[in-house]
């Protein structure tokens, strides 16, 4: 049993952290989030140059990472700086492309930062249910014609290539009969772009007779989706961990500086005890992210239980850390000008990405019944 990072990952972490410290303060971040599609294309290219996109994928897919520990290292750093570039959509769509095979050329472009991709899976009524797919794909010669609505597609605003889930057989909520397609975001694809409240580019996407290329086997898309979601959850949880770390550090530091009644508020015991609880839960969060990351390539049931356990904790610990960070800061924590509120906002909103705390608690229980 070994909890340390190997040398490659330590270097990756240091490189990324140094780059972000130099180039990604909170003011710049707000600027990037205000750009078209909600991020800086220039930064995205630099990330590609530094090899950070490549770190999300294994060698078979043209990358040089792709293990749970790689995702953890990269996304924790991204979370510490609230990076708005589309790493999560890239990871999730890319994981499916890599898993399906045959998309090496596209993946190379993705890893080079030339092509933006996203996973268009959720639908207006699917909530967090992974198997709930109502979009329909029908074969027409060698092509597939897809119709349906995809909602809250993170990174969807920028993506020129979409990985789209659609039903090729079965009931609307059956795991069987979901297929995945690569769809060019042009003919038959209408996007309504917007920004999420925490500053990330997203889109509502309408598919009207859009044509797609089948990824992997027909009807067998669920497994690829689940694996992509697992990777996505490791990533977004590590990102949450990074943001929680900063929120906690800012809070601790604030209580050292801020005085009331003539003494630093960090000397007030009631706040001390609550910060102690934040620190304890932060360690729990780190452990849980490690458990999820460390099991990403293990048996499905082991993996998925750790994944759901982790995302459940992201919701509960995240809420505690975010709300305490604001509360202990007082009014300052509420302002746009000061950083901590933005960290809190991101932490809370991550609960709405890839399944919330209740969803994953229920899923964890259901997975336990299968053992």
């Amino acid at each position, binding site marked *: 049993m070994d909890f340390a990072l190997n040398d490659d990952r330590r270097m990756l972490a240091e490189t990324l952290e140094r780059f972000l410290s130099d180039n990604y303060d909170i003011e710049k971040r707000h600027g990037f989030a205000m750009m078209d599609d909600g991020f800086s294309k220039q930064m995205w290219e630099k990330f590609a140059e530094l090899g950070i996109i490549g770190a999300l994928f294994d060698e078979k897919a043209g990358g040089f990472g792709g293990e749970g520990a790689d995702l953890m290292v990269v996304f924790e750093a991204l979370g510490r700086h609230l990076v708005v570039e589309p790493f999560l959509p890239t990871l999730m769509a890319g994981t499916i492309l890599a898993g399906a095979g045959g998309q090496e050329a596209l993946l190379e472009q993705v890893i080079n930062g030339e092509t933006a991709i996203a996973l268009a899976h*959720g639908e*207006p*009524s699917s*909530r*967090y*249910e992974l198997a*709930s797919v109502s979009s329909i794909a029908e074969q027409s010669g060698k092509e597939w014609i897809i119709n349906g609505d995809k*909602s*809250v597609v993170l990174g969807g605003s920028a993506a020129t290539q979409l990985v789209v889930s659609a039903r090729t057989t079965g009931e609307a*909520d059956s795991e069987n009969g979901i297929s995945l397609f690569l769809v060019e975001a042009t003919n038959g694809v209408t996007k*309504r772009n*917007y*920004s*999420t*409240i*925490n500053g*990330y580019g*997203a889109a*509502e996407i309408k598919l009207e007779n859009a044509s797609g290329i089948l990824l992997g086997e027909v009807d067998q898309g669920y497994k690829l989706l689940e694996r992509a979601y697992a990777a996505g959850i490791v990533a977004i949880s590590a990102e949450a961990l990074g943001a929680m770390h900063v929120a906690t550090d800012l809070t601790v530091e604030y209580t050292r500086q801020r*005085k*009331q*009644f*003539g003494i630093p508020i960090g000397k*007030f015991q*009631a*706040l001390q005890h609550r910060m102690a609880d934040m620190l304890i839960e932060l360690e729990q969060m780190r452990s849980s992210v490690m458990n999820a990351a460390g099991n990403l390539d293990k048996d499905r049931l082991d993996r998925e239980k750790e994944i759901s356990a982790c995302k459940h904790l992201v919701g509960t610990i995240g*809420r505690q850390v975010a*709300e305490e960070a*604001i*509360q202990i800061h*007082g*009014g300052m*924590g*509420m*302002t*746009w*000008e000061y950083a901590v*509120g*933005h960290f*809190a*906002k991101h932490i*809370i*909103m991550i*609960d*709405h*990405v890839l399944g*919330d705390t*209740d969803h994953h*608690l*229920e899923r964890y229980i259901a997975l336990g019944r299968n053992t």
Partner: protein
Amino acid sequence: MDLAYTDDEKSFRNTVREFLKEKLSSRLATKVKLGKRLTKQDMEEWHATLNEKGWLAVNWPEEYGGTGWSAVQKHIFDEECWAAGAPRTVPFGLNMLAPVLMKFGSDEQKAHYLPRILDGTDWWCQGYSEPGAGSDLASLRTSAVREGDHYVVNGQKTWTTLGQHADWIFCLVRTSSEGKRQEGISFLLIDMNAPGVTVRPIILIDGEHEVNEIFFDNVKVPVGNLVGEENKGWTYAKYLLTHERTGTANIGNSNAALEKLKAIALEQKKSGKPLSEDPYFAARMAKVEIDLKALKTTNLRILVDADNGAAAGPESSMLKVKGTIIRQELNDLARRALGPYALPFSSEAMEEGYNEEPIGPDYANAVAAKYFNNRKMSIYAGSNEIQREIITKTKLGL
């Protein structure tokens, strides 16, 4: 012991309900229910409507143009207003300045300012907090130095809610640095249009402009604008803190939020069934409903006691803490109920004029923003930490 409303109270509720049906415009009610941004004009319109009926100053005695209502009547009015989607009234003049003026102001001050609060001539804001004086209010440093028939005011106030709309600000200022810190504070009324007053917006994490910093640079304030005696301002401010208990518990607000939550949970589907039927979500909704039910009775017990002349104790602190916990839990459940549709946010969609198709359900846009905005509730008006201090210190006497 009889927990039922009397026939009079029931008929009062009907009267209020009919008034609201008739006089509250659906334009305003819709904005409130969808959580859209209210303009200054919206708020003024609603004040005027209430004032016309004589129902604006629910906490004032009749002699000053108030309603003279009992605690239970005020509670009913509050519940009905929230249920109907009425804007909340702006409390700074009505509920904060007015009681101080009535108790400590001169006859001239009362005669001049009180009617202007009612008829909307003056919009007031509050100047208590300073950057270095939050929970520790007595450490405030904005100074007022007497020069002839004027005070000259220098310093800075912060967290001034709706100060951007205000004509006047009532301030705690330091007029002496001798004795205890609390002893050199005075209560001063300052014209926001006086030379040397500057307003700087503070934008909150939900992007809203709601609070402000106010700067005073050699602002001349006539001596006649001093309320009560010089250096006694702390007493007046404290009087206000324990005097005003209606509304602290946020009952009407939480009632309305609970109804809205229930509507969302009924409409949102989880695996094809209403979210409200999900056992775990239903349990969390029921818990907060049960808490609110109990708080409603706690609130009424305290208000009725106060009507009967009970001395003010730490009760309003209890109402503040529990009331905000409940309100914030409702905010949390509402954002959670939305699922992924809590994420999209459009600032333009907060405006009345916006008529593009909403992203997701039409009630979704403001929900997450409101969750973040309402984090303020446990911070402002004496943070919940300060309230807990008050509660135990009263009880322990240590």
